[in-house]
């Protein structure tokens, strides 16, 4: 455009031919710029020039400080921008944006504003990233605490299993003693001089009577070696869990089984769990096993069921409270944990009766005297599963309180009122209430509301196989453990297969699998510990359904095959043989428990316990490097 002389009055070469001059800023902007650029903005043009390393020529040294081309003229210079020297134009390039020249002049304000935009957008992007990271972190935190819960649950299940095994051992010991006594009794000399001739009798007792004792002792020894209470140190996890809870301010109400477990147990690892076990052992010791073909427990006679030294699975939910003489009033709806209920009621009579009903339904109750107190409680971060809200109250009525609570919380709120005209009810719902409990409320009405709105806290229906919530099932087991009058291990595992919440649901298979793998991984560096843990895993599977067993054994067979390649052939064969024995052992376990009088099984039981011990020897070389 400088070559074109028509615009000379507006823009032309400088006097020396090494610069160009914009003489009339306004005309240049309006008429010439649009011809060459997509804009008509002089500032943009200047900015562009700056980018290409053109610089405004200053005339400070002139006497009057005025440009020789006039007051409004802008002169721009570039070392390579010369009249009649087009070759040098190639050297005029856009500056690299990174090294900003310190000599940023007034014009650079425009330039830096662009930079600022860039910075801003980068900042926003960074913030978004940060936000995403934060979200991810929160998510992971939640997952982490869930995992810890899960693992703690698994550990407790394992401990329970351990206790079952110990109970079974005790039972078998008794049987063993019984058997030997019987055989002595049947012996020609036995009946007369039982005490005097003990030694002689023992000498005469055939070796096959002595044999059963040693596998039992062997198994007992193994059990004591692999005490889950010692192996799995739950304190670390619970500590971790506690920290997580504390850090996660939103979870102000720790899961109740955690609360319950904390003060009661684990202070001494094996000691505490062992103490509960020993109590049970003591109970078992005190039990009398009547002599007879069926050991006093004949499944054909229902009255004999009382002779079974274990809690009956048929009534797992009935609370055993010594002074609850009138049980009919205390209905247990079967919560997995006591629901937290906030009772908002100004009338002391209603409050006390409502509270009493809720107590009878095994709910944990907090009360507020009016809407204001309720809102304050909610605002302070208290978490409830359900809020029962009176409507007409002093200070703040129930509808307003509900409206306020709904601004920040979604806990179900039930209106408790005698005003149950349809327009009233419509208003309650409009303000965020979830249901209406007409006053004067009845126990049935209250229970119905609880059932309806707290269904997620109900124990899964105890038809076993289909139980959909492994975690809930585990909690159920834990809850039962806390009932002092029952043996926890038996409650969870002595049951018929239909009532095995901890083991039977298909859903738990995955978690058990994962857990075992985790154990394997964590113990990989410690062959000894690994061997014991692995054995526990196997024992745990001893109570699992057949389907799962098969799958597991196939998997183990695969492991054994690997071992065969790596280790010596003899060792592998040993492992496989042990496995075969294990299958037999597992299959017979059920009949062992129910029948109980077949001493021949003892030998097989030895195999069963022996198997896991042998296996790791064959497998460790392969598994450790993994």
């Amino acid at each position: 455009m400088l070559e074109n002389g028509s615009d000379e009055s507006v823009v032309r070469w400088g006097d020396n031919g090494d610069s160009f001059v914009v003489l009339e800023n306004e005309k240049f902007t309006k008429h010439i710029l649009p011809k060459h650029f997509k804009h008509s903005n002089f500032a943009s043009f200047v900015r562009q020039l700056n980018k290409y390393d053109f610089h405004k020529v200053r005339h400070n040294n002139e006497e009057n400080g005025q440009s020789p081309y006039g007051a409004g003229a802008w002169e721009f210079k570039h070392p390579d921008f010369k009249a009649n020297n087009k070759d040098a134009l190639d050297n005029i390039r856009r500056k690299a944006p990174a090294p900003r020249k310190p000599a940023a002049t007034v014009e650079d304000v425009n330039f830096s504003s662009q930079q600022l935009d860039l910075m801003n957008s980068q900042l926003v992007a960074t913030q978004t990233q940060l936000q995403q990271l934060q979200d991810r972190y929160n998510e992971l935190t939640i997952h982490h605490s869930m995992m810890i819960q899960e693992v703690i649950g698994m550990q407790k299940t394992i401990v329970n299993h351990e206790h079952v095994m110990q109970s079974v051992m005790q039972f078998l010991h008794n049987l063993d003693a019984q058997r030997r006594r019987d055989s002595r009794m049947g012996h020609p000399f036995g009946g007369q001089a039982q005490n005097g001739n003990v030694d002689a009798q023992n000498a005469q007792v055939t070796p096959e009577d002595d044999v059963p004792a040693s596998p039992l002792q062997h198994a007992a020894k193994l059990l004591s070696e692999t005490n889950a209470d010692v192996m799995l140190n739950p304190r670390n996890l619970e500590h971790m869990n506690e920290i997580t809870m504390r850090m996660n301010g939103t979870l102000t109400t720790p899961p109740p089984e955690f609360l319950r477990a904390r003060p009661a147990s684990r202070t001494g690892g094996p000691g505490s769990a062992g103490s509960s076990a020993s109590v049970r052992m003591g109970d078992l010791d005190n039990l009398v096993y009547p002599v007879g073909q069926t050991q006093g427990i004949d499944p054909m006679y229902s009255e004999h069921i009382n002779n079974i030294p274990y809690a009956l699975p048929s009534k797992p939910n009935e609370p055993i409270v010594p002074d609850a003489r009138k049980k009919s009033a205390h209905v247990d709806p079967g919560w997995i944990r006591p629901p937290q209920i906030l009772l908002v009621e100004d009338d002391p009579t209603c409050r006390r009766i409502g509270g009493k009903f809720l107590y009878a339904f095994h709910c944990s109750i907090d009360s507020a005297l009016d809407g204001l107190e309720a809102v304050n409680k909610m605002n302070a971060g208290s978490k409830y599963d359900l809020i029962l809200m009176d409507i007409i109250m002093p200070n703040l009525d129930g509808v307003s309180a509900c409206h306020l609570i709904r601004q920040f919380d979604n806990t179900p709120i039930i209106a408790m009122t005698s005003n149950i005209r349809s327009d009233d009810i419509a208003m309650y719902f409009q303000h965020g209430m979830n249901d209406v409990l007409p006053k004067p409320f009845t126990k049935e009405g209250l229970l119905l509301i609880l059932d309806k709105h707290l269904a997620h806290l109900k124990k899964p229906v105890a038809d076993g196989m289909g139980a959909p919530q492994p975690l809930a099932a585990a909690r159920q087991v834990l809850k039962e453990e806390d009932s002092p009058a029952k043996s926890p291990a038996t409650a969870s595992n002595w049951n018929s297969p239909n009532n095995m919440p901890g083991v039977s649901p298909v859903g738990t298979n995955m978690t058990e699998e994962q857990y075992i793998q985790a154990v394997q991984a964590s113990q990989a560096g410690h062959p000894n510990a690994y061997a014991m843990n692995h054995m526990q895993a196997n024992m745990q599977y001893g109570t699992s359904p057949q389907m799962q067993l098969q799958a597991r054994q196939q998997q183990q067979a695969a492991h054994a095959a690997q071992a065969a390649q790596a280790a010596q052939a003899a060792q592998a064969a040993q492992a496989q043989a042990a496995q075969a024995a294990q299958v037999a052992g597992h299959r017979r376990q059920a009949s062992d428990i129910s029948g109980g009088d077949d001493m021949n099984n003892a030998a097989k039981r030895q195999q069963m316990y022996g198997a896991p011990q042998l296996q790791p020897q064959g497998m460790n070389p392969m598994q450790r490097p993994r």
Partner: protein
Amino acid sequence: MEVPGAEDRIDQATFEQILEMDDSVDDRDFSKSIVYDFFTQADSTFDKMDSSLDAKDLKTLSELGHFLKGSSATLGLTKVQHSCEKIQHYGHKKDEAGSADITEEEALEKLKSEIAQVKKEFGDVQKVLKKFYKDES
């Protein structure tokens, strides 16, 4: 569990479920304390009703009626409950069914007689209940 002499003063089913909350038939501490607390509550409410009536404070009278209605209903004290409901309506300047409007003078007139009525109903049922709990313990 029948409350002797209660007749239509007490709704048996409602009262029964409170009695059920007692530890045993020999130990009625829970229901007894509830009922006796209600006596105290009713007495103080009646006092407030009297002073509100003197002050012609219809709104407070309605609220007091509602308050006592709730607790008497929870205990199943039917007659007291119904009287209280009327007081609640009269306080709103409605007739006893709560549908038609009445004047303030009418309301005060009706309130005066209804408060006397509710005190009588309460006295009757109080006697019955006191007797019941004395017999029990």
